[in-house]
Protein backbone atom coordinates (compact mmCIF):
# COMPACT_ATOMS: atom_id res chain seq x y z
CA UNK A 1 0.00 0.00 0.00
CA UNK A 2 1.25 3.46 -0.83
CA UNK A 3 1.43 5.46 2.40
CA UNK A 4 -0.48 8.71 2.91
CA UNK A 5 2.78 10.63 2.80
CA UNK A 6 3.81 8.91 -0.44
CA UNK A 7 0.44 9.67 -2.03
CA UNK A 8 0.71 13.29 -0.96
CA UNK A 9 4.14 13.65 -2.56
CA UNK A 10 3.10 11.79 -5.72
CA UNK A 11 -0.01 13.97 -6.07
CA UNK A 12 2.19 17.04 -5.80
CA UNK A 13 4.27 15.78 -8.73
CA UNK A 14 1.14 14.94 -10.72
CA UNK A 15 -0.17 18.48 -10.22
CA UNK A 16 2.77 19.86 -12.24
CA UNK A 17 2.16 17.76 -15.37
CA UNK A 18 -0.75 17.39 -17.79
CA UNK A 19 -1.43 13.69 -17.11
CA UNK A 20 -0.56 11.20 -14.35
CA UNK A 21 1.83 9.03 -16.32
CA UNK A 22 4.13 12.01 -16.87
CA UNK A 23 4.91 12.02 -13.16
CA UNK A 24 6.17 8.43 -13.25
CA UNK A 25 9.82 9.24 -12.59
CA UNK A 26 8.99 11.60 -9.75
CA UNK A 27 6.67 8.94 -8.33
CA UNK A 28 9.37 6.26 -8.53
CA UNK A 29 11.69 8.65 -6.69
CA UNK A 30 9.10 9.16 -3.97
CA UNK A 31 8.68 5.42 -3.42
CA UNK A 32 12.42 4.85 -3.45
CA UNK A 33 12.95 7.69 -1.00
CA UNK A 34 10.60 6.06 1.50
CA UNK A 35 11.44 2.39 0.89
CA UNK A 36 15.07 2.61 -0.34
CA UNK A 37 14.20 0.58 -3.44
CA UNK A 38 11.27 -0.23 -5.72
CA UNK A 39 10.00 -3.79 -5.25
CA UNK A 40 7.74 -5.58 -7.75
CA UNK A 41 4.88 -5.02 -5.35
CA UNK A 42 5.54 -1.27 -5.03
CA UNK A 43 5.90 -1.04 -8.78
CA UNK A 44 2.50 -2.65 -9.37
CA UNK A 45 0.77 -0.39 -6.86
CA UNK A 46 2.42 2.67 -8.29
CA UNK A 47 1.55 1.70 -11.87
CA UNK A 48 -2.04 1.26 -10.82
CA UNK A 49 -2.05 4.68 -9.19
CA UNK A 50 -0.58 6.29 -12.32
CA UNK A 51 -2.97 4.52 -14.74
CA UNK A 52 -0.11 2.65 -16.39
CA UNK A 53 0.62 -1.01 -16.86
CA UNK A 54 3.28 -2.38 -14.51
CA UNK A 55 5.29 -3.38 -17.59
CA UNK A 56 5.34 0.15 -18.91
CA UNK A 57 6.39 1.59 -15.56
CA UNK A 58 9.07 -1.08 -15.25
CA UNK A 59 10.42 -0.12 -18.67
CA UNK A 60 10.92 3.38 -17.27
CA UNK A 61 12.23 2.23 -13.88
CA UNK A 62 14.84 -0.11 -15.35
CA UNK A 63 16.09 2.48 -17.83
CA UNK A 64 17.46 4.74 -15.10
CA UNK A 65 20.48 3.52 -13.16
CA UNK A 66 19.55 5.37 -9.97
CA UNK A 67 16.15 3.75 -9.60
CA UNK A 68 16.91 0.59 -7.65
CA UNK A 69 14.81 -2.45 -8.60
CA UNK A 70 16.75 -4.61 -6.16
CA UNK A 71 17.22 -4.04 -2.44
CA UNK A 72 20.23 -1.89 -1.57
CA UNK A 73 22.16 -1.39 1.64
CA UNK A 74 21.51 1.45 4.07
CA UNK A 75 24.17 3.49 2.30
CA UNK A 76 24.90 3.42 -1.41
CA UNK A 77 28.49 4.12 -2.39
CA UNK A 78 28.88 5.53 -5.90
CA UNK A 79 32.40 5.32 -7.24
CA UNK A 80 33.05 7.69 -10.14
CA UNK A 81 34.59 5.53 -12.88
CA UNK A 82 34.81 8.16 -15.59
CA UNK A 83 37.92 9.27 -17.34
CA UNK A 84 39.35 11.98 -15.05
CA UNK A 85 38.88 9.82 -11.97
CA UNK A 86 40.34 6.83 -13.84
CA UNK A 87 43.45 8.86 -14.66
CA UNK A 88 43.72 9.93 -11.02
CA UNK A 89 43.49 6.44 -9.54
CA UNK A 90 39.85 5.32 -9.41
CA UNK A 91 40.82 1.67 -9.90
CA UNK A 92 42.84 1.61 -6.67
CA UNK A 93 39.99 3.24 -4.75
CA UNK A 94 37.56 0.64 -6.07
CA UNK A 95 39.93 -2.25 -5.31
CA UNK A 96 40.46 -1.05 -1.77
CA UNK A 97 36.72 -0.60 -1.15
CA UNK A 98 36.06 -4.05 -2.58
CA UNK A 99 38.70 -5.61 -0.38
CA UNK A 100 37.55 -3.78 2.74
CA UNK A 101 33.83 -4.43 2.26
CA UNK A 102 34.18 -7.82 0.55
CA UNK A 103 31.79 -6.82 -2.21
CA UNK A 104 32.06 -6.06 -5.91
CA UNK A 105 30.03 -3.56 -7.92
CA UNK A 106 26.31 -4.24 -7.63
CA UNK A 107 26.64 -6.11 -4.36
CA UNK A 108 25.60 -5.36 -0.79
CA UNK A 109 27.56 -6.15 2.38
CA UNK A 110 26.21 -9.04 4.44
CA UNK A 111 25.21 -6.70 7.27
CA UNK A 112 23.18 -4.61 4.80
CA UNK A 113 25.28 -1.53 5.51
CA UNK A 114 26.71 -0.68 2.08
CA UNK A 115 25.95 -1.25 -1.59
CA UNK A 116 28.69 -0.31 -4.04
CA UNK A 117 27.97 0.89 -7.57
CA UNK A 118 30.02 2.45 -10.36
CA UNK A 119 28.75 5.84 -11.47
CA UNK A 120 29.57 7.82 -14.57
CA UNK A 121 31.20 11.18 -13.89
CA UNK A 122 30.20 12.90 -10.66
CA UNK A 123 31.06 16.28 -12.22
CA UNK A 124 33.91 17.15 -9.90
CA UNK A 125 36.78 16.22 -12.23
CA UNK A 126 39.19 18.86 -10.88
CA UNK A 127 38.98 17.08 -7.52
CA UNK A 128 39.39 13.51 -8.77
CA UNK A 129 39.11 10.81 -7.63
CA UNK A 130 35.67 11.23 -6.13
CA UNK A 131 33.00 9.03 -4.55
CA UNK A 132 29.59 9.65 -3.08
CA UNK A 133 28.20 7.89 -0.04
CA UNK A 134 24.47 8.49 0.21
CA UNK A 135 24.09 12.21 -0.45
CA UNK A 136 27.62 13.11 0.58
CA UNK A 137 30.35 13.83 -1.94
CA UNK A 138 34.00 13.10 -1.15
CA UNK A 139 36.63 14.64 -3.41
CA UNK A 140 40.39 14.27 -3.85
CA UNK A 141 40.24 11.07 -1.87
CA UNK A 142 43.13 8.74 -1.20
CA UNK A 143 43.08 5.12 -0.11
CA UNK A 144 44.10 6.15 3.43
CA UNK A 145 40.93 8.21 3.84
CA UNK A 146 38.48 5.43 2.99
CA UNK A 147 38.33 3.89 6.45
CA UNK A 148 37.51 7.28 8.00
CA UNK A 149 34.81 7.93 5.42
CA UNK A 150 33.16 4.53 5.90
CA UNK A 151 33.18 4.88 9.68
CA UNK A 152 30.74 7.81 9.42
CA UNK A 153 27.99 5.50 8.20
CA UNK A 154 26.26 3.04 10.51
Amino acid at each position, binding site marked *: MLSKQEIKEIDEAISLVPYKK*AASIEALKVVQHHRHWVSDESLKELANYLDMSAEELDSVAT*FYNLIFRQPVGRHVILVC*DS*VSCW*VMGEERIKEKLSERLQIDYGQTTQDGRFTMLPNPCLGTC*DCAPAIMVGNDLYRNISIDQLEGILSKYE
Partner: protein
Amino acid sequence: MEKPLTEHLRKDGKPLSLKEYEQVGGYQALRKTLKMTPQEIQGVVKDSNLKGRGGAGFSTGLKWSFVPMNAPKPKYLIANADEMEPGTFKDRILLEQTPHQLIEGMIIAAFAIQASESFVFLRWAYKTAAKEIIKAIHEAHEAGYLGKNILGSGYDLEMHLHTGVGRYMCGEETALLNSLEGKRATPRAKPPFPQVSGLFGKPTIVNNVETLCCLPHIINKGAEWFKKLSLTQDSGTKIYGVSGKVKKPGAWELPMGVTLRELIEEHAGGMKDGLKFRGALPGGASTDFLVEEHLDVKMDFAGVAAAGSRLGTGTVVVLDDKTCPVGFVKNLEHFFAQESCGFCTPCREGLPWIEKLLDSIDKGDGRTEDIKLLEAHTKLLGPGNTFCALAPGAMEPLQSALKYFRKDFEQHIQEKGCSYSKNYRPQTAAH
Protein backbone atom coordinates in the same frame (compact mmCIF):
# COMPACT_ATOMS: atom_id res chain seq x y z
CA MET B 1 39.80 41.10 -17.67
CA GLU B 2 36.04 40.91 -17.10
CA LYS B 3 34.42 37.82 -15.63
CA PRO B 4 30.72 38.63 -15.58
CA LEU B 5 29.52 35.14 -14.65
CA THR B 6 31.88 34.48 -11.79
CA GLU B 7 33.30 37.81 -10.54
CA HIS B 8 30.92 37.98 -7.60
CA LEU B 9 31.32 34.40 -6.40
CA ARG B 10 31.94 34.18 -2.67
CA LYS B 11 35.40 33.03 -1.64
CA ASP B 12 33.98 30.42 0.73
CA GLY B 13 32.14 28.67 -2.11
CA LYS B 14 28.74 29.34 -0.54
CA PRO B 15 25.98 30.60 -2.81
CA LEU B 16 25.22 34.29 -3.22
CA SER B 17 22.07 35.04 -1.27
CA LEU B 18 19.26 36.91 -3.00
CA LYS B 19 20.30 40.08 -1.16
CA GLU B 20 23.95 39.70 -2.14
CA TYR B 21 22.96 39.02 -5.74
CA GLU B 22 20.75 42.11 -5.81
CA GLN B 23 23.55 44.22 -4.32
CA VAL B 24 25.79 43.40 -7.27
CA GLY B 25 23.10 44.29 -9.80
CA GLY B 26 21.08 41.09 -9.73
CA TYR B 27 17.59 41.18 -11.29
CA GLN B 28 18.23 44.61 -12.86
CA ALA B 29 18.41 42.89 -16.26
CA LEU B 30 15.02 41.33 -15.56
CA ARG B 31 13.54 44.77 -14.85
CA LYS B 32 14.99 46.00 -18.14
CA THR B 33 13.75 42.90 -19.97
CA LEU B 34 10.17 43.38 -18.83
CA LYS B 35 10.16 46.85 -20.42
CA MET B 36 11.32 45.44 -23.77
CA THR B 37 9.45 43.27 -26.27
CA PRO B 38 10.30 39.59 -26.69
CA GLN B 39 11.47 40.41 -30.22
CA GLU B 40 13.85 43.05 -28.86
CA ILE B 41 15.33 40.56 -26.38
CA GLN B 42 15.77 37.99 -29.14
CA GLY B 43 17.39 40.68 -31.29
CA VAL B 44 19.94 41.68 -28.64
CA VAL B 45 20.84 38.05 -27.96
CA LYS B 46 21.12 37.27 -31.66
CA ASP B 47 23.34 40.34 -32.13
CA SER B 48 25.52 39.29 -29.21
CA ASN B 49 26.38 36.09 -31.12
CA LEU B 50 25.93 34.04 -27.94
CA LYS B 51 26.40 30.37 -28.83
CA GLY B 52 25.19 27.45 -26.72
CA ARG B 53 27.70 26.45 -24.03
CA GLY B 54 26.41 22.90 -23.67
CA GLY B 55 28.55 21.54 -26.49
CA ALA B 56 26.76 22.13 -29.78
CA GLY B 57 27.56 25.83 -30.09
CA PHE B 58 24.35 26.83 -31.85
CA SER B 59 23.27 30.49 -31.84
CA THR B 60 20.96 31.01 -28.85
CA GLY B 61 19.04 33.90 -30.40
CA LEU B 62 18.49 31.94 -33.59
CA LYS B 63 17.29 28.89 -31.64
CA TRP B 64 14.71 31.04 -29.87
CA SER B 65 13.51 32.59 -33.13
CA PHE B 66 12.05 29.23 -34.26
CA VAL B 67 9.48 29.32 -31.46
CA PRO B 68 6.09 30.37 -32.87
CA MET B 69 5.23 33.50 -30.90
CA ASN B 70 1.47 33.13 -31.26
CA ALA B 71 1.28 29.50 -30.15
CA PRO B 72 -1.34 28.85 -27.47
CA LYS B 73 -0.17 28.38 -23.87
CA PRO B 74 1.80 26.75 -22.46
CA LYS B 75 5.28 27.14 -23.88
CA TYR B 76 8.25 25.82 -21.94
CA LEU B 77 11.75 26.97 -21.11
CA ILE B 78 14.14 24.36 -19.74
CA ALA B 79 17.57 24.79 -18.21
CA ASN B 80 19.70 21.80 -19.10
CA ALA B 81 21.59 21.24 -15.86
CA ASP B 82 22.17 17.54 -16.52
CA GLU B 83 25.92 18.03 -16.71
CA MET B 84 27.09 14.46 -17.34
CA GLU B 85 29.74 14.72 -20.03
CA PRO B 86 32.76 13.00 -18.44
CA GLY B 87 35.41 15.59 -17.67
CA THR B 88 32.86 18.38 -17.33
CA PHE B 89 32.28 20.29 -14.11
CA LYS B 90 31.68 23.90 -15.15
CA ASP B 91 27.91 24.22 -14.66
CA ARG B 92 28.23 22.82 -11.14
CA ILE B 93 29.98 26.03 -10.08
CA LEU B 94 27.20 28.24 -11.43
CA LEU B 95 24.45 25.99 -10.04
CA GLU B 96 25.91 25.79 -6.56
CA GLN B 97 27.23 29.32 -6.21
CA THR B 98 24.99 31.66 -8.21
CA PRO B 99 21.54 30.04 -8.41
CA HIS B 100 19.87 33.44 -8.75
CA GLN B 101 21.97 34.28 -11.80
CA LEU B 102 20.62 31.12 -13.45
CA ILE B 103 17.05 31.93 -12.42
CA GLU B 104 17.31 35.49 -13.75
CA GLY B 105 18.73 34.15 -17.02
CA MET B 106 15.90 31.64 -17.24
CA ILE B 107 13.23 34.30 -16.71
CA ILE B 108 14.79 36.43 -19.45
CA ALA B 109 14.91 33.47 -21.86
CA ALA B 110 11.37 32.48 -20.94
CA PHE B 111 10.16 36.03 -21.55
CA ALA B 112 11.92 36.10 -24.94
CA ILE B 113 9.84 33.14 -26.11
CA GLN B 114 6.83 34.00 -23.91
CA ALA B 115 6.97 30.74 -22.00
CA SER B 116 4.71 30.34 -18.99
CA GLU B 117 6.35 27.28 -17.44
CA SER B 118 9.99 26.50 -16.81
CA PHE B 119 12.02 23.60 -15.44
CA VAL B 120 15.55 23.15 -14.24
CA PHE B 121 16.56 19.62 -15.27
CA LEU B 122 19.29 18.83 -12.75
CA ARG B 123 21.38 15.70 -12.52
CA TRP B 124 20.95 13.54 -9.47
CA ALA B 125 24.49 13.86 -8.15
CA TYR B 126 24.34 17.64 -7.67
CA LYS B 127 22.83 17.56 -4.18
CA THR B 128 24.09 20.97 -3.04
CA ALA B 129 22.84 22.57 -6.25
CA ALA B 130 19.40 20.99 -5.78
CA LYS B 131 19.11 22.46 -2.29
CA GLU B 132 20.25 25.91 -3.39
CA ILE B 133 18.01 26.02 -6.46
CA ILE B 134 14.89 25.06 -4.51
CA LYS B 135 15.72 27.79 -2.01
CA ALA B 136 16.45 30.36 -4.72
CA ILE B 137 13.23 29.60 -6.65
CA HIS B 138 11.31 30.13 -3.43
CA GLU B 139 13.11 33.42 -2.73
CA ALA B 140 12.52 34.63 -6.29
CA HIS B 141 8.82 33.88 -5.88
CA GLU B 142 8.67 35.81 -2.62
CA ALA B 143 10.43 38.77 -4.22
CA GLY B 144 7.98 38.87 -7.11
CA TYR B 145 10.48 37.73 -9.77
CA LEU B 146 8.49 34.55 -10.43
CA GLY B 147 4.81 33.67 -10.37
CA LYS B 148 1.90 35.80 -11.52
CA ASN B 149 2.37 39.32 -12.85
CA ILE B 150 6.15 39.50 -12.42
CA LEU B 151 7.12 42.93 -11.06
CA GLY B 152 3.77 44.30 -12.18
CA SER B 153 4.50 43.58 -15.86
CA GLY B 154 1.57 41.27 -16.48
CA TYR B 155 4.00 38.47 -17.41
CA ASP B 156 3.55 35.13 -15.58
CA LEU B 157 6.17 32.41 -15.17
CA GLU B 158 6.35 29.36 -12.94
CA MET B 159 9.59 27.47 -12.30
CA HIS B 160 10.19 23.95 -11.02
CA LEU B 161 13.19 21.78 -10.27
CA HIS B 162 13.32 18.25 -11.70
CA THR B 163 16.19 16.09 -10.52
CA GLY B 164 17.07 13.20 -12.79
CA VAL B 165 17.74 9.58 -11.89
CA GLY B 166 20.85 9.04 -13.96
CA ARG B 167 21.66 8.36 -17.62
CA TYR B 168 23.89 10.53 -19.81
CA MET B 169 21.23 10.44 -22.53
CA CYS B 170 19.15 12.94 -20.54
CA GLY B 171 21.57 15.65 -21.66
CA GLU B 172 20.41 15.23 -25.28
CA GLU B 173 17.61 17.75 -25.52
CA THR B 174 14.88 15.56 -27.00
CA ALA B 175 15.76 12.68 -24.66
CA LEU B 176 15.61 15.17 -21.81
CA LEU B 177 12.08 16.07 -22.88
CA ASN B 178 11.06 12.40 -22.91
CA SER B 179 12.50 12.02 -19.43
CA LEU B 180 10.58 15.08 -18.19
CA GLU B 181 7.46 13.44 -19.59
CA GLY B 182 8.15 10.41 -17.41
CA LYS B 183 9.44 8.21 -20.23
CA ARG B 184 12.68 6.43 -21.06
CA ALA B 185 15.27 8.99 -22.13
CA THR B 186 15.47 8.04 -25.80
CA PRO B 187 15.99 10.72 -28.44
CA ARG B 188 13.16 11.91 -30.68
CA ALA B 189 13.12 12.25 -34.44
CA LYS B 190 13.69 15.79 -35.70
CA PRO B 191 11.75 17.47 -37.22
CA PRO B 192 9.61 18.46 -35.51
CA PHE B 193 12.18 20.41 -33.51
CA PRO B 194 11.45 21.07 -29.84
CA GLN B 195 11.08 24.78 -30.60
CA VAL B 196 7.84 23.86 -32.37
CA SER B 197 6.83 20.62 -30.67
CA GLY B 198 8.75 19.89 -27.47
CA LEU B 199 7.63 19.10 -23.95
CA PHE B 200 4.11 17.63 -24.04
CA GLY B 201 4.01 18.62 -27.71
CA LYS B 202 4.31 22.33 -26.91
CA PRO B 203 6.95 24.79 -28.13
CA THR B 204 10.01 24.36 -25.93
CA ILE B 205 13.48 25.79 -25.62
CA VAL B 206 16.25 23.87 -23.86
CA ASN B 207 19.32 25.98 -23.00
CA ASN B 208 22.48 25.09 -21.12
CA VAL B 209 23.11 26.58 -17.66
CA GLU B 210 26.17 28.60 -18.67
CA THR B 211 24.33 29.95 -21.73
CA LEU B 212 21.43 31.12 -19.56
CA CYS B 213 23.80 32.72 -17.05
CA CYS B 214 25.22 34.95 -19.84
CA LEU B 215 21.81 36.51 -20.52
CA PRO B 216 21.45 38.99 -17.61
CA HIS B 217 24.84 40.47 -18.53
CA ILE B 218 24.02 40.73 -22.25
CA ILE B 219 20.78 42.54 -21.42
CA ASN B 220 22.51 44.86 -18.92
CA LYS B 221 25.56 45.74 -20.95
CA GLY B 222 24.60 45.07 -24.54
CA ALA B 223 25.56 42.90 -27.49
CA GLU B 224 28.66 44.90 -28.42
CA TRP B 225 30.10 44.65 -24.91
CA PHE B 226 29.53 40.88 -24.94
CA LYS B 227 31.29 40.51 -28.27
CA LYS B 228 34.30 42.43 -27.00
CA LEU B 229 34.77 40.12 -24.02
CA SER B 230 36.16 37.55 -26.39
CA LEU B 231 39.55 37.34 -28.09
CA THR B 232 38.03 35.92 -31.27
CA GLN B 233 34.91 35.76 -33.45
CA ASP B 234 32.91 33.76 -30.89
CA SER B 235 31.57 36.15 -28.29
CA GLY B 236 31.75 36.30 -24.53
CA THR B 237 33.68 34.58 -21.84
CA LYS B 238 33.84 30.83 -21.35
CA ILE B 239 34.17 28.76 -18.23
CA TYR B 240 37.09 26.53 -19.09
CA GLY B 241 38.29 23.68 -16.95
CA VAL B 242 41.25 21.32 -16.81
CA SER B 243 41.41 17.91 -15.14
CA GLY B 244 43.95 15.10 -15.22
CA LYS B 245 47.55 15.09 -13.97
CA VAL B 246 48.21 18.81 -13.96
CA LYS B 247 49.48 20.77 -10.97
CA LYS B 248 46.34 22.82 -10.35
CA PRO B 249 43.24 21.33 -11.90
CA GLY B 250 40.27 23.68 -11.81
CA ALA B 251 37.83 25.86 -13.73
CA TRP B 252 38.21 29.51 -14.68
CA GLU B 253 36.10 32.06 -16.51
CA LEU B 254 38.30 33.48 -19.27
CA PRO B 255 37.83 35.37 -22.51
CA MET B 256 36.56 33.05 -25.25
CA GLY B 257 39.50 32.04 -27.43
CA VAL B 258 42.41 31.61 -25.00
CA THR B 259 44.83 28.97 -26.18
CA LEU B 260 45.02 25.40 -24.95
CA ARG B 261 48.62 26.14 -23.90
CA GLU B 262 47.54 29.05 -21.70
CA LEU B 263 44.89 26.90 -20.06
CA ILE B 264 47.23 24.04 -19.27
CA GLU B 265 50.49 25.84 -18.60
CA GLU B 266 49.27 29.00 -16.87
CA HIS B 267 45.90 28.34 -15.28
CA ALA B 268 46.38 24.65 -14.53
CA GLY B 269 50.00 25.21 -13.51
CA GLY B 270 51.46 22.83 -16.11
CA MET B 271 51.91 19.09 -15.87
CA LYS B 272 52.73 17.45 -12.54
CA ASP B 273 56.46 16.98 -11.95
CA GLY B 274 57.96 14.16 -13.98
CA LEU B 275 55.08 14.00 -16.44
CA LYS B 276 54.80 15.23 -20.00
CA PHE B 277 51.73 16.38 -21.91
CA ARG B 278 50.67 13.84 -24.53
CA GLY B 279 47.23 14.98 -25.53
CA ALA B 280 43.90 16.30 -24.34
CA LEU B 281 40.21 16.10 -24.99
CA PRO B 282 39.37 19.79 -25.38
CA GLY B 283 35.70 19.67 -24.41
CA GLY B 284 34.72 16.51 -22.60
CA ALA B 285 34.64 12.80 -23.43
CA SER B 286 33.01 13.13 -26.85
CA THR B 287 35.64 15.34 -28.48
CA ASP B 288 38.66 14.40 -30.62
CA PHE B 289 42.09 14.44 -28.99
CA LEU B 290 44.32 17.42 -29.54
CA VAL B 291 48.07 16.86 -29.21
CA GLU B 292 51.23 18.90 -28.72
CA GLU B 293 51.07 20.49 -32.18
CA HIS B 294 47.68 21.95 -31.23
CA LEU B 295 48.73 23.66 -28.01
CA ASP B 296 48.42 27.10 -29.60
CA VAL B 297 44.93 26.44 -30.91
CA LYS B 298 42.45 29.08 -29.84
CA MET B 299 39.79 27.49 -27.68
CA ASP B 300 36.69 28.82 -29.44
CA PHE B 301 34.17 27.02 -31.64
CA ALA B 302 35.96 27.75 -34.92
CA GLY B 303 39.50 27.35 -33.62
CA VAL B 304 39.03 23.90 -32.14
CA ALA B 305 37.01 22.81 -35.18
CA ALA B 306 39.85 23.86 -37.49
CA ALA B 307 42.18 21.61 -35.45
CA GLY B 308 39.86 18.67 -36.12
CA SER B 309 38.00 18.56 -32.83
CA ARG B 310 35.20 20.40 -31.05
CA LEU B 311 35.14 22.98 -28.27
CA GLY B 312 32.35 20.90 -26.68
CA THR B 313 31.94 22.01 -23.09
CA GLY B 314 35.40 23.63 -22.94
CA THR B 315 36.49 21.41 -20.08
CA VAL B 316 39.81 19.80 -20.96
CA VAL B 317 40.84 16.29 -19.90
CA VAL B 318 44.61 15.87 -20.08
CA LEU B 319 46.44 12.67 -21.03
CA ASP B 320 50.00 12.47 -19.70
CA ASP B 321 52.90 10.30 -20.90
CA LYS B 322 52.65 7.80 -18.03
CA THR B 323 48.96 7.07 -18.60
CA CYS B 324 48.05 4.49 -21.23
CA PRO B 325 46.12 5.99 -24.17
CA VAL B 326 44.51 2.61 -24.88
CA GLY B 327 43.25 2.36 -21.30
CA PHE B 328 42.10 6.00 -21.47
CA VAL B 329 40.04 5.36 -24.60
CA LYS B 330 38.75 2.05 -23.22
CA ASN B 331 37.42 3.94 -20.21
CA LEU B 332 35.63 6.40 -22.51
CA GLU B 333 34.12 3.70 -24.72
CA HIS B 334 33.00 1.73 -21.68
CA PHE B 335 31.12 4.85 -20.61
CA PHE B 336 29.50 5.36 -24.01
CA ALA B 337 28.58 1.68 -24.39
CA GLN B 338 26.96 1.73 -20.97
CA GLU B 339 25.11 4.98 -21.61
CA SER B 340 23.76 4.09 -25.06
CA CYS B 341 19.99 4.18 -24.71
CA GLY B 342 19.68 1.07 -26.89
CA PHE B 343 17.18 2.66 -29.24
CA CYS B 344 19.17 2.39 -32.48
CA THR B 345 21.15 -0.65 -33.54
CA PRO B 346 24.56 0.72 -34.57
CA CYS B 347 25.00 2.42 -31.21
CA ARG B 348 23.55 -0.36 -29.06
CA GLU B 349 25.53 -3.14 -30.76
CA GLY B 350 28.56 -1.25 -32.00
CA LEU B 351 29.69 0.45 -28.82
CA PRO B 352 29.90 -2.73 -26.69
CA TRP B 353 31.79 -4.40 -29.53
CA ILE B 354 34.29 -1.53 -29.56
CA GLU B 355 34.65 -1.74 -25.80
CA LYS B 356 35.38 -5.48 -26.04
CA LEU B 357 37.96 -4.96 -28.78
CA LEU B 358 39.70 -2.29 -26.72
CA ASP B 359 39.56 -4.47 -23.63
CA SER B 360 41.24 -7.37 -25.41
CA ILE B 361 43.92 -5.08 -26.87
CA ASP B 362 44.51 -3.60 -23.42
CA LYS B 363 44.82 -7.06 -21.84
CA GLY B 364 47.24 -8.30 -24.49
CA ASP B 365 44.78 -10.43 -26.47
CA GLY B 366 44.52 -8.04 -29.42
CA ARG B 367 44.97 -9.11 -33.04
CA THR B 368 46.65 -7.01 -35.74
CA GLU B 369 43.40 -6.72 -37.66
CA ASP B 370 41.61 -5.24 -34.63
CA ILE B 371 42.94 -1.78 -35.42
CA LYS B 372 41.32 -1.88 -38.86
CA LEU B 373 38.13 -3.16 -37.31
CA LEU B 374 38.12 -0.27 -34.84
CA GLU B 375 38.73 2.17 -37.68
CA ALA B 376 35.83 0.70 -39.64
CA HIS B 377 33.60 1.23 -36.60
CA THR B 378 34.51 4.89 -36.34
CA LYS B 379 32.88 5.24 -39.78
CA LEU B 380 29.98 2.85 -39.17
CA LEU B 381 29.02 4.66 -35.98
CA GLY B 382 29.85 8.09 -37.37
CA PRO B 383 27.55 10.99 -38.22
CA GLY B 384 24.50 10.02 -40.27
CA ASN B 385 24.43 6.36 -39.28
CA THR B 386 22.85 6.66 -35.86
CA PHE B 387 19.72 8.24 -34.45
CA CYS B 388 21.44 10.83 -32.23
CA ALA B 389 24.89 12.24 -31.57
CA LEU B 390 25.92 9.82 -28.80
CA ALA B 391 27.73 7.25 -30.96
CA PRO B 392 29.32 9.78 -33.34
CA GLY B 393 30.53 11.61 -30.20
CA ALA B 394 31.93 8.34 -28.87
CA MET B 395 33.86 7.87 -32.12
CA GLU B 396 35.66 11.21 -31.84
CA PRO B 397 38.19 10.27 -29.13
CA LEU B 398 38.60 6.79 -30.66
CA GLN B 399 39.34 7.93 -34.21
CA SER B 400 41.80 10.57 -33.02
CA ALA B 401 43.48 8.15 -30.60
CA LEU B 402 43.99 5.70 -33.48
CA LYS B 403 45.57 8.56 -35.42
CA TYR B 404 47.80 10.12 -32.76
CA PHE B 405 48.56 7.15 -30.50
CA ARG B 406 48.56 4.38 -33.09
CA LYS B 407 51.96 3.10 -32.00
CA ASP B 408 50.56 2.42 -28.54
CA PHE B 409 47.76 0.31 -29.99
CA GLU B 410 50.25 -1.59 -32.19
CA GLN B 411 52.65 -2.11 -29.31
CA HIS B 412 49.90 -3.55 -27.11
CA ILE B 413 49.08 -6.04 -29.85
CA GLN B 414 52.68 -6.95 -30.72
CA GLU B 415 53.94 -7.24 -27.17
CA LYS B 416 50.71 -8.74 -25.85
CA GLY B 417 50.27 -6.32 -22.99
CA CYS B 418 50.28 -2.79 -21.71
CA SER B 419 53.72 -1.29 -21.22
CA TYR B 420 52.26 1.34 -18.87
CA SER B 421 51.21 -1.37 -16.44
CA LYS B 422 53.37 -2.27 -13.45
CA ASN B 423 53.12 -5.98 -14.23
CA TYR B 424 54.24 -5.52 -17.81
CA ARG B 425 56.41 -8.26 -19.35
CA PRO B 426 56.77 -7.84 -23.11
CA GLN B 427 56.11 -11.00 -25.11
CA THR B 428 57.11 -10.58 -28.70
CA ALA B 429 57.49 -13.26 -31.34
CA ALA B 430 61.27 -13.00 -30.94
CA HIS B 431 61.18 -14.13 -27.30
